[in-house]
């Protein structure tokens, strides 16, 4: 897991929220890495702790949140140990965030040019004129037409899609190392969603930033992410490359998520859904938190928390089903079909690699 290419390493993170009824254990021992230039998608239902994770990275948690354990290493330093002043220097400069709702995330009484220019003035110490000139460039980059005339407009004069472009411009204006996108397309129309996703991919290439992409929509993940982490009840339950998660999932929760996603193959049948609701994190269940909703649950799931079992070098899943002693179970029909497809793909790939082994290696050496 420790990799030189890792830009962000989150280890054993635990976050509690104090409420009137007790401590809600929102994040329960979460670890993951973000590699340079990649897009990591964190997928899960609402309340699974996706947003709390990103907020903790930004140092912007609510006042009743307490980080009880863990570390977040960025460039060799633990963000959790940094002072508020130091975090101010990192936010918007090294790590930037895009929020869910573009309709409410812009200041309604400030001209958008100024809003985009603000991070430049704060972090680069630019004078207003210079910062505005650069903000204008950024507006063009994110595809706002007639940017020269619109720089002095207010947020309410823009459509939702355009506003999200502005939010992206604000986030990227300092060319941050890491961009956290917290459900950036959920509040938008489907057609606009695609535009925004394309824009993000395009810009990621241009300014080589790493993206943590938070979403509950697996359909969006497929086209965006390099790697996927699936979260359930404040924990990561499975992670791997996007192909591994989509075509060779191992955790029953991931099976459920994928089965409930309509595909082109979905016929007139009713879409399957995961029965029940996520557990209450005020008092998380013993063992596997998913057991109660899991039709493949084993007895041990109620007694002991499953560790991560290795599937491949890049693919891990926390389910007892992967234990050598566990009975073999047949995943849902749709998952079996996916696995079959994956096996064919792998075979084809191996064949392809066997054919071209020598030239590929040479090419790499030359570079």
């Amino acid at each position, binding site marked *: 897991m420790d990799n030189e290419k890792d830009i962000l390493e989150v280890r054993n993170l635990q976050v509690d929220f104090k*409420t*009137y*009824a*007790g401590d809600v254990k929102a994040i329960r021992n979460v670890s993951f890495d973000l590699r340079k230039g990649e897009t990591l998608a964190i997928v899960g239902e609402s309340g699974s702790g996706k947003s709390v994770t990103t907020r903790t990275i930004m140092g912007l948690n609510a006042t*009743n949140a307490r980080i009880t354990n863990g570390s977040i290493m960025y460039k060799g330093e633990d963000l959790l140990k940094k002072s508020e002043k130091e975090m101010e220097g990192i936010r918007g400069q090294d790590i930037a965030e895009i929020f869910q709702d573009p309709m409410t995330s812009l200041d309604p009484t400030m001209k958008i040019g100024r809003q985009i220019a603000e991070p430049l003035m704060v972090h680069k110490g630019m004078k207003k004129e210079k910062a505005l000139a650069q903000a204008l460039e950024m507006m063009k980059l994110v595809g706002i037409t007639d940017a020269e005339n619109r720089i002095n407009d207010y947020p309410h004069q823009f459509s939702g899609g355009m506003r999200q472009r502005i939010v992206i411009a604000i986030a990227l204006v300092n060319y941050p190392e890491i961009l956290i996108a917290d459900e950036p397309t959920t509040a938008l129309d489907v057609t606009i969603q695609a535009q925004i996703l394309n824009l993000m991919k395009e810009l990621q290439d241009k300014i080589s930033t790493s993206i943590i992409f938070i979403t509950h929509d697996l359909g969006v993940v497929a086209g965006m992410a390099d790697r996927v982490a699936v979260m359930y009840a404040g924990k990561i339950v499975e992670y791997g490359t996007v192909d591994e998660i989509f075509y060779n999932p191992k955790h029953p929760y991931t099976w459920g998520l994928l089965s409930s996603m309509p595909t082109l193959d979905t016929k007139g049948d009713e879409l399957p859904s995961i029965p*029940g*609701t996520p*557990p*209450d994190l*005020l*008092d998380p*269940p013993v063992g596997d938190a998913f*057991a*109660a*909703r899991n039709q*493949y*649950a*084993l*007895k*041990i*799931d*109620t*007694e*002991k928390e*499953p*560790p991560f*079992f290795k599937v491949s070098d890049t693919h891990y899943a926390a389910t*007892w089903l992967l*234990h*050598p*002693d*566990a*009975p073999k179970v047949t995943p849902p029909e749709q998952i079996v079909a996916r696995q079959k497809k994956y096996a064919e793909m792998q075979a084809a790939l191996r064949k392809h690699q066997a054919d071209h082994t020598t030239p590929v290696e040479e090419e790499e050496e030359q570079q």
Partner: protein
Amino acid sequence: MADTVKLPEDSFKPMTPADRAALDSEKIAAPSLTFTQDAWRRLKKNRGAWVSLIILAIVFIMAFGSIFVSPHNPNAVNPSYANLPSKIPGIGINGFNGTLVQAGQRIDAYQQAGASSGTYYIMGTDYLGRDLFSRVLYGTRISLIIALVATFFDLTIGVTYGMFSGWKGGRIDTFMQRVIEIILSIPNLVVIVLLILILKPGMTSIIIAIALTSWTNMARLVRAQTMELKSQEYILAARTLGERPLKIAFKHLLPNLSSVIIINTMFTIPNAIFFEAMLSYIGIGISSPQASLGTLLNDGQKNFQFLPYQMWWPALVLSIVMLAFNLLGDGLRDAFDPRTKE
């Protein structure tokens, strides 16, 4: 790493239905609260509101209890006991022990007036020797009655007007709002004064005047809320199902308007109390010899330099009652609005 731990043999048996039943997947650890319960929980945590509620209960009981049990007749004149300062049994602090400073010397005013040692006037007496405590109780009662009547009109006229206007919308709404705007474009006190002039000063006319002017705020708030609720799905559903408007109003609208109504009532009350006190203070409200907090303040103010207690007591009671209603209103608003501070 999983293999390092020795696991019991039957660990990997699938869960039996019995195991599954033991796992209550829908378990909610936090006690589930209805909206009212949740509001009540928040209100109980608000110390200011809680203390206010207790103070108001005491004030209510004392003010209305004084109809039956009053230490003295509030209107009984006793010139020989005139201008006696406060004397509370068992308290020796100057200001509460019946002494006052006269010509640079502290003297026992009660002794000088020839009162027996068992005579106590908790708040002292006024220039005619009337018991101030009984008069303050009487005045508070008048204030509370006026407040209650104002609330009643707030609830009847204000809520009905607001609901009707918001529900009907369109031209009727525009017209009804214009009417309110015109009423609001004259300072309230001026309207009240005009009405009192026509109706002759007195308790009834104060009540009518305050009632006729106090409902506008309630009407506006209720209207705004009604308009918002009107477009909600459950109201639309009820309308689609052909429920009668009156039934919708009582079954669906009122319960959802209740928090707005309760909160606004808590701010109408101190307003009404203030207007009564002010009118009586000017001299066009309740007139002597009847006591009201306003007339007591006016009487007390004349002698403030020499007998400050005669104004301090009614001022204190008036301010505490207003304070308590305002704090309770604040507490209720916070309790009903989960967004505000925990």
